[in-house]
């Protein structure tokens, strides 16, 4: 049977995507029809990361972001409330905000001057009376607004009125996000770096969610340069599969905490003892919030005798079946000493982000996987990729955190969970 012969892409998926059997067809990464469907059924349904609260601290602050293919304004209103609006004028669809960020009480459309306040209300247009003799429909001209909620400083939004609350969406992952960004007050350093990567969006997502194993090979230079001892720096620790398609990996070390002692008190005030105990053992910490927001505490490395790392969150923003806009934020504890902020920033830039020594190698893999995925479309039978790593492993019973947790980081269980969630969404009619 030629699964490609089916006209309905959803049917094609049902016939070929088998997360539990650990078989994922390569073509799903770049099939244009699947991409169009993803934009609706995945990005149109779930909560999407849009900003960190520290990016818009003051009333009137706003930034422009994308939610899937929708361009939106993430804004803090005069009432201090966070709101997300489609960046599209209700008159004839011009962009209201053409710059990346700003501050103000309202947006005035450059085309015809319709003006909206930052609660999304239409507040006026030039020569309104002459232009609209019957009066203008103020209510009908409200900005299209997405639901907006945040957790531990991470702001999410969705255009799906029926989506579960953000807390439920994040579910078991929250315990780990507490450690990541809840352990202290964090702030974004500057702005996100942004660049275009010729990759399908799911490849970086699955990599951060589930792939500790690639570090042995892809990032072998780390050992070669003596920045870590041994190539298996990504092996010891935990592989975590929270419900809902999220995933993470936690590398551990036993030499004690590497973060500045000054921060200890704040951590204690915000974390449970279990969380704090884990925090102190972290060596690296990576994961993905379904579908396309990833986070990372890069593997602690030794530079000039110091143990350092520079934390990042990132978004794999799809802009085409085989292309994303990568956004990479560097975050640091607001109350950290300056030497740590300086060191963290430099380490982040050196390891991840547009010029990061790790990121470079990753982008190379994703680009070429994407290329091969494209070509797999012309086979009669799908080319099946293999996600069996870690199958047969037994979840831990004595681990403090929630979710399905495995001892040792080499597994693709979280990737299997990612594709299960993805498939469920793709097959669900609204």
């Amino acid at each position, binding site marked *: 049977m030629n699964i490609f012969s089916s006209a309905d892409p959803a049917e094609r998926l049902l016939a070929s995507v088998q997360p539990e059997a650990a078989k994922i067809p390569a073509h799903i990464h770049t099939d244009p029809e699947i991409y169009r469907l993803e934009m609706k059924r995945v990005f149109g349904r779930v909560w999407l990361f849009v900003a960190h609260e520290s990016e818009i601290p003051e009333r009137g602050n706003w930034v422009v972001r994308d939610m899937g293919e929708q361009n939106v304004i993430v804004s803090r209103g005069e009432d201090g409330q966070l709101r997300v609006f489609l960046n599209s004028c209700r008159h004839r669809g011009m962009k209201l905000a053409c710059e990346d960020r700003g501050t103000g009480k309202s947006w005035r459309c450059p085309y015809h001057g319709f003006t909206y306040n930052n609660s999304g209300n239409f507040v006026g247009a030039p020569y309104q009376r002459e232009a609209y003799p019957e009066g203008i429909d103020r209510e009908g001209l409200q900005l299209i607004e997405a639901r907006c909620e945040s957790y531990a400083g991470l702001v999410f939004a969705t255009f799906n009125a029926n989506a579960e609350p953000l807390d439920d969406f994040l579910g078991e992952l929250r315990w780990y996000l507490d450690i990541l960004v809840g352990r202290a007050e964090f702030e974004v350093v500057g702005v996100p770096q*942004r660049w275009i990567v010729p990759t399908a969006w799911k490849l970086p997502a699955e990599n951060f969610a589930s792939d500790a194993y690639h570090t042995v090979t892809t990032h072998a230079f780390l050992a070669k340069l003596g920045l870590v001892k041994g190539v298996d720096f990504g092996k010891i620790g935990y592989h975590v599969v929270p419900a809902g398609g999220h995933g993470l990996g936690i590398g551990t070390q036993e030499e004690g905490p590497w973060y500045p002692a000054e921060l200890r008190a704040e951590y204690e005030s915000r974390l449970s003892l279990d969380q704090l105990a884990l925090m102190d053992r972290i060596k690296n910490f990576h994961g993905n919030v379904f579908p396309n927001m990833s986070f990372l505490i890069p593997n602690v490395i030794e530079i000039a005798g110091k143990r350092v790392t520079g934390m990042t969150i990132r978004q794999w923003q799809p802009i085409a079946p085989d292309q994303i806009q990568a956004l990479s934020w560097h975050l640091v504890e607001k109350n950290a000493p300056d030497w740590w902020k300086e060191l963290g920033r430099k380490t982040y830039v050196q390891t991840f982000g547009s*010029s990061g020594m790790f990121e470079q190698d990753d*982008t190379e893999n994703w680009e070429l996987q994407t290329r091969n995925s494209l070509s797999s479309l012309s086979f009669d039978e799908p080319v099946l990729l293999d996600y069996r790593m870690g199958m047969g492993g037994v979840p831990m019973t004595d681990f403090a955190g929630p979710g399905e947790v495995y001892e040792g980081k080499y597994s693709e269980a979280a990737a299997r969970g990612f594709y299960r969630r993805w498939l469920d969404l793709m097959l669900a009619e609204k």
Partner: protein
Amino acid sequence: MTAVSQRVGVPLETRLAVEDFLVDEALLLDDRRFDEWFELFTDDLVYQAPVRVTAKRGHEEIVDTIFHFDESKQSLGLRVRRLGTDVAWAEDPPSVTRHYVSNVRVTQADAPGELVVRAYVLLYRSRGDRGLHDMISYVRWDVLRPSGSSFQIARRRAVLDQAVLGTKNLAIFL
């Protein structure tokens, strides 16, 4: 940035020597002779590429708190050493690059003997097997110090011309 007006000229020989220096530096990069290239920098090097944002006229376009590159001689050395290994996948096979250096302007720096060199650089990067290429455009501000018969680079500030970079990574040097 140095205003166009308040510029102090330099001797003709210096000016031409600087142009030669920049041209030779470009060749070292494009020939991927990174070890030799690394020698061109002073030990107190500051090498930065700030991030650009799309802003309304009159508003801040360059964010100087986060960078695409934020290097000291030591960290730059780490990058160079990495490229010396046989596991630097990102650039193996390497991109073919060509650093087109033009609009060079040489002026005296405040520190005696130091030179401020402004240049436009158009970086061609050939990509894949589909006849494609990236074009990375930036303006560069260097501080040069005389060193033997030539110079060394003490400061480099490269301001990229895109808010969203159209190249898959910066596994190359600016």
